[in-house]
C-alpha cells in the first residue's frame, strides 16, 4: 500500500498578517502584464463553457491547496470529490479554474469508475493571490464545485530582481 505524500495540512493565517502578505504578493507579480490577466468574469465564463450553462451546486468538492504559498511557480494542488466511484455513480471530469492568471483554465481531468477514487493531484502556476475553483461533472450530468482563496508570496532574492 502506497502512502500519499503531499500534505493536506492547511496553514492558518492571522488576518492581520494577511493584509501585509497580500500586499507583498501584489508587488511581486509583475511577471504578467495586468492587461493579460483573466478576470473573475472570465473565469465564470470558462466555467459556463465547461458546464454548458447547467447549474453548479457548491459542496462535495475539496480543493486542497495551502492557503499561504511560498511560491506561485509550482503549487501542489489536490482535488477530491465525494463520490462512491462505481459504475452507477462516479465523477466524469474535474475542471480547475483560476481568476487571475492570463487564462482562467488550468486543467480538465477525466476520470472513470476504474479510477477508484475521485482524486487528482498536480502542480499549478498561480500568478497572484486569487481564488481557485474546481468543478466536478458527475455521471448523472450534474455539476458540483468547491473553491479556495490562496495567498501567493515569492521566495527571497528572486533571480533577475
Amino acid at each position, binding site marked *: 500500500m502506497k502512502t500519499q505524500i503531499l500534505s493536506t495540512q492547511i496553514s492558518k493565517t492571522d488576518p492581520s498578517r494577511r493584509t501585509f502578505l497580500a500586499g507583498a504578493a501584489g508587488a511581486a507579480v509583475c511577471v504578467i502584464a495586468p492587461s493579460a490577466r483573466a478576470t473573475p468574469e472570465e473565469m465564470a465564463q470558462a466555467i459556463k463553457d465547461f458546464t454548458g450553462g447547467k447549474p453548479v451546486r457548491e459542496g462535495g468538492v475539496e480543493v486542497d491547496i495551502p492557503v499561504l504559498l511560498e511560491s506561485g511557480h509550482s503549487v501542489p494542488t489536490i482535488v477530491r470529490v465525494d463520490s462512491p466511484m462505481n459504475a452507477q455513480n462516479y465523477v466524469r471530469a474535474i475542471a480547475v479554474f483560476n481568476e487571475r492568471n492570463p487564462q482562467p483554465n488550468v486543467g480538465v481531468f477525466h476520470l472513470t469508475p476504474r479510477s477508484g477514487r475521485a482524486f*487528482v493531484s498536480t502542480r499549478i*502556476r498561480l500568478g497572484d493571490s486569487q481564488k481557485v475553483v474546481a468543478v466536478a461533472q458527475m455521471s448523472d450530468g450534474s455539476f458540483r464545485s468547491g473553491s479556495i482563496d490562496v495567498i501567493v508570496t515569492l521566495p527571497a532574492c528572486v533571480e533577475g530582481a
Partner: protein
Amino acid sequence: MARALINVPAKAKKGEIIEIKTMLSHPMETGFRPAADGKLVPRNIIKRFVCTYDGEAVFSADLFPAISANPFLSFTLVATNSGVITFSWTDDNGQTQVQTAKIEVA
C-alpha cells in the same frame, strides 16, 4: 525524447486502489513570458495526457499553460488484472511520447 518519471506499484492485490505518479521533463512554456530580447517565447506545452490500462483509457487530462513546468500528475486506479499501463503526453505540435509500466495483480 523528454525524460519521464513514473511511479506505479509493481504488485497489487485485485481490487486495490493504487496511486500513480507521473512527471515529464518539459518547460510548459506559457507563451506569455518575454525572453531577454523582449519578444514573447512561443507557447510550447503538453496539452494532453492519457493513461490506458490494458488498452482502455482510464484517466486523461487536458492541460493549459497554468500547469507547472515538468508537469506532475497523480491519480488513482483500481488494480483489476496484471497488465500494462501506458502513459502518453502530447505537446502543442502533436508530438506524443509514450511510456509503459507493468503491474502484477494477484
